């Protein structure tokens, strides 16, 4: 392959395996950046009187370290592993939406570049701490443009992650191989499913927070600045994201550890049903513990006590996970390969790190520890000791599958020892430093000096261990011995195919029979016997033999592997638009044009139905039979509920919090400020439009093109009318002097109706797309029906949100 072809392959790929590799490589890049920053500020802390890294630069290093490690290294690394492995583990050919998968990756990459770009602005990167507490992040206290870039990069990353969430959830639900029941899924896939569930509802509040922070800084709103609780509002929004975020980071590592520990103990996971239930309960409870990050804010003590109880309760599921791992190891025939060493090491670190966290759940104890190095040691023990080492364990474990080569066990063991020693030396002294406050670049307490220096030495040892690991991987790529398809004798589905995984994943259709054996059925066998009888074992067919080389017999199911530059160009457009928004207006216009062109090009391919693909007809019937587009839209709706939920929470908080009641002098009732009739008219317009959309569904279902046309034109007309009415309404309000500077009640109004209007506009685009399809003659068949249903569901949520907006803003 020529160099140019090789580059184009990586730029245009939508294959989950390639994208997985892209994610892993990119996240390791971010790891090196953030890790180097950590080494720099650890040097400063070892020599507190030096001027090595002081003042704003120190805080920039700390902030960027935190943000990049959490958002641009840890989760994306897990997503990369998941991208490669999850479809293989469930028996799918690819993810549900390959082009969206590529879009997720490129948005992620460019959002990271956007953040790092801030370090090159004249005032540098944001220096406010990764928690971005308001009002320090307001423009008057942090005027730097780097802060705006950071907010936009977080917004962009949230988009990337939401798209990825939808992709994975639909894949795991709808694209499993026949016979692969929910319970048979391996632990890694299950834990990725829980991670995706958490991400779905955790990232929208962060996205809304970042967006509101941006408009606070640039449009003069006062959501986070207003003295009646603005700081607390950010606290709530951020930590509502922040707490599930830690489980988003943890679950993939636990899943990888589970797969590894079971393989190398030669035993299945102990009490799988219980541990899955435990994880599900943890997922649910994780949304009601966030206030333990706010224990010393002085809010209502009974509220805080409730959160203290839920925090202590959430330790139960993780204790069950630890128990399950230990009992899997117990009486197993343990084989200590490098992945197993890392997995057991992570488990040990999890016990240490996790138990130190339980103390923080008590308000009384938290009072002493909060803001000190105990907290830092606790979360780093888990993030570095469990999550990072667990993900490295996963990388080592699946390395033969991904690259087709083995690594050096000896170098791997050196990596392991150095890593464990590094983690212990770095963070155990920090537990003893439980009196030292966080975010200080200098101190003059002599007792802390030795401990800090030990910690710094430990951090360098850990850095060396990372380099050793990288060397191991690079060496393996260059001269590692070729790996067999199942070097570990494991029993999950990904080990039944050659290493590295062939382009089409499986040779034949993997069918999991009732006795838990797997056959790869060829097309002819399926036609002859039918999937059900093969699955029940009524017919014993030979597996399609694994071809000696990938270039052998072609796959039984033809796979369209789409190669397209659209995701890359669309992400570039977004990047230029966001960067230009704060740095240079011409660049912003360029970005917008590029993004719109890329989107148009992408959707035009869909108008022509280039990528119609029937779901393979063997998906279980629940929740949405054989319809991934509709399933995807429902998952998207769940995230929209979280998004608008956050926006409404902002409204409730700033209305209710200052005075403790809903009706007050500070907030004039809606009917005095807004034209109720105009609002009512808009409500009727939107409602009519949504109703008219049902005509589209009927038309497509029955092949009645005229009906579809009427429905589409009707909805389009109503939606555009809604926007026009809204335009005039805003115009009137602005003319009456009720702009953004009129008070927080107007700012809340513009925020909410602006966000809703944006969604109406996107609905207009979607309806236009369907209209184009109609004119092009491709609005027929199952695919079209799914798309119509999906857009109809979308209009439904837009309508429902408006029915909440209207009374809350116009009537009370």
């Amino acid at each position, binding site marked *: 392959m020529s160099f140019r072809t090789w580059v184009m392959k990586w730029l245009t790929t939508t294959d989950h395996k390639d994208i997985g590799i892209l994610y892993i490589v990119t996240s390791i890049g971010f790891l090196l950046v953030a890790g180097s920053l950590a080494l720099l500020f650890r040097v400063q802390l070892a020599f507190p009187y030096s001027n090595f890294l002081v003042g704003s630069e120190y805080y920039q290093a700390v902030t960027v370290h935190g943000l990049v490690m959490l958002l641009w290294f840890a989760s994306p690394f897990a997503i990369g592993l998941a991208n490669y492995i999850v479809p293989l583990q469930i028996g799918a050919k690819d993810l549900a939406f390959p082009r969206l998968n590529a879009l997720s990756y490129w948005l992620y990459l460019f959002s990271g570049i956007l953040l790092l770009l801030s370090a090159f602005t004249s005032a540098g990167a944001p220096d406010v701490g990764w928690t971005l507490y308001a009002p*320090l992040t307001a423009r008057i206290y942090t005027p730097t443009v780097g802060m705006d870039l950071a907010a936009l990069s977080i917004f962009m990353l949230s988009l990337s992650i939401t798209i990825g969430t939808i992709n994975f959830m639909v894949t795991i639900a709808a694209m499993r191989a026949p016979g692969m029941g929910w319970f*048979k899924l391996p632990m890694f896939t299950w834990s990725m499913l829980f991670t995706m569930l958490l991400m779905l509802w955790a990232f929208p509040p962060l996205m809304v927070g970042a967006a509101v922070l941006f408009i606070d800084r640039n449009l003069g709103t006062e959501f986070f600045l207003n003295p009646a609780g603005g700081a607390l509002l950010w606290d709530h929004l951020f930590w509502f994201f922040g707490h599930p975020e830690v489980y988003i980071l943890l679950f993939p590592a636990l899943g990888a550890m589970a797969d590894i520990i079971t393989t190398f103990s030669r035993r*299945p996971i102990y009490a799988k049903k219980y541990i899955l239930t435990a994880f599900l309960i943890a997922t649910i409870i994780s949304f009601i513990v966030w206030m333990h990050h706010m224990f010393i804010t002085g809010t209502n003590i009974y509220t805080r006590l409730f959160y203290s109880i839920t925090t202590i309760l959430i330790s139960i599921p993780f204790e069950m996970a630890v128990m399950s791992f230990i009992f899997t190891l117990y009486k197993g025939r343990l084989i200590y390969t490098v992945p197993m060493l890392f997995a057991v090491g992570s488990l040990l670190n999890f016990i240490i790190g996790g138990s130190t966290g339980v103390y923080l759940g008590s308000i009384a104890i938290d009072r002493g520890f909060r803001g000190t190095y105990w907290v830092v040691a606790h979360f780093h023990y888990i993030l570095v000791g469990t999550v990072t080492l667990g993900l490295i364990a996963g990388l080592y474990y699946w390395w033969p599958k991904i690259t087709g080569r083995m690594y050096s066990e000896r170098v791997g063991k050196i990596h392991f020892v150095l890593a464990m020693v590094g983690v212990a030396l770095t963070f155990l002294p920090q537990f003893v430093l439980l009196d030292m406050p966080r975010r200080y670049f200098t101190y003059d307490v002599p007792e802390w000096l030795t401990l800090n220096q030990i910690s710094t030495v430990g951090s360098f040892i850990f850095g060396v261990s990372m380099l050793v690991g990288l060397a191991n991987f690079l060496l393996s790529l260059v001269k590692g011995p070729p790996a067999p398809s199942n070097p570990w004798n494991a029993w999950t589905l990904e080990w039944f195919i050659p290493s590295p995984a062939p382009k089409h994943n499986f040779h034949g259709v993997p069918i999991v029979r009732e006795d838990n054996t797997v056959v790869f059925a060829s097309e002819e066998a399926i036609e002859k016997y039918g999937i059900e009888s093969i699955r029940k074992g009524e017919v014993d067919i030979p597996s399609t033999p694994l071809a000696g080389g990938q270039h052998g017999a072609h796959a039984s199911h033809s796979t369209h592997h789409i190669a397209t530059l659209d995701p890359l160009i669309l992400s570039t457009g977004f990047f230029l638009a966001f960067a230009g928004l704060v740095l240079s207006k011409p660049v912003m216009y360029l970005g917008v044009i590029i993004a719109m062109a890329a989107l148009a090009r992408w959707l035009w391919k869909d108008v022509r139905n280039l990528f119609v693909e029937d779901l393979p007809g063997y998906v279980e019937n629940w929740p949405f039979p054989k319809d991934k587009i509709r399933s995807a839209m429902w998952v998207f709706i769940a995230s929209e509920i979280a998004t608008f939920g956050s926006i409404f929470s902002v409204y409730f908080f700033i209305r209710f919090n200052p005075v403790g009641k809903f009706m007050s002098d500070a907030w004039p009732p809606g009917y005095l400020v807004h034209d109720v009739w105009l609002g009512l008219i808009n409500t009727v317009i939107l409602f009519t439009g949504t109703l008219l959309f049902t005509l589209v569904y009927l038309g497509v279902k029955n092949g009645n093109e005229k009906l579809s046309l009427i429905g589409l034109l009707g909805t389009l007309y109503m939606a555009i009318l809604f926007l026009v009415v809204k335009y005039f309404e805003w115009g009137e309000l602005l003319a009456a002097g009720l702009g953004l500077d009129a008070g927080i009640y107007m700012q809340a109004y513009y925020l909410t109706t602006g966000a809703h209007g944006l969604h109406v506009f996107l609905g207009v685009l979607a309806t236009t797309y369907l209209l184009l399809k109609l004119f092009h003659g491709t609005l027929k068949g199952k695919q079209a029906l799914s798309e119509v249903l999906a857009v109809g569901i979308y209009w439904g949520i837009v309508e429902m949100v408006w029915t909440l907006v209207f009374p809350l803003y116009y009537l009370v």
Partner: protein
Amino acid sequence: MAHEEKGGGGHGGLVYEYIYIAIIVAVLAGFISSLGYYSFALNINPACEAIKADEEQLQEIQQLAFSNPVVEKAPGIYDVYIYGRQYVWIPSTITLENPKQVTFYVATGDVIHGFEIAGTNVNFMVLPGYISKFTWYPPSDLEGELLLLCNEYCGVGHQLMKASIIIERSGEALDTTSDSGGFIEELISLLSITSPTGILAHG
């Protein structure tokens, strides 16, 4: 594909799990009830309150911090008014004589600050738009100069933001009897960081 292992014993082979879960639940029930006991009965967790305040009330705190920060309402019972802003605490020195109960009223002029008296359990956030009220019961043998520092990153001068709290004890007024005496109090004071004689105290 792996199938579930069934161990020996009753309850469908899950005896050990049930025993383990029972142990965990018992331990956690102990933790949670001890939480309640310490918090309410032993007053180990003096409640910190953030009181919503408007501009006037915040100005009042600021004035008091400048003019008359330390008010002794009764022997040993103090009200202290402190105003924090980037990057100072006003007043920067607070002297207390034989304090038994000190109520801090703290306000911030700009961003979120953290109020911590090192080596004690006084640690709370000061939020814009709120007055943080915290009642502290200093141990009767605590004396000398204590460091008051800012605990929540507030900008480039964060590490400079400190003040001193000086506690003077005179012999006769020393109250050696504690309110709720006994073994548990001693144990807590030995293990906790609230007392300078505790194991983990620094300095």
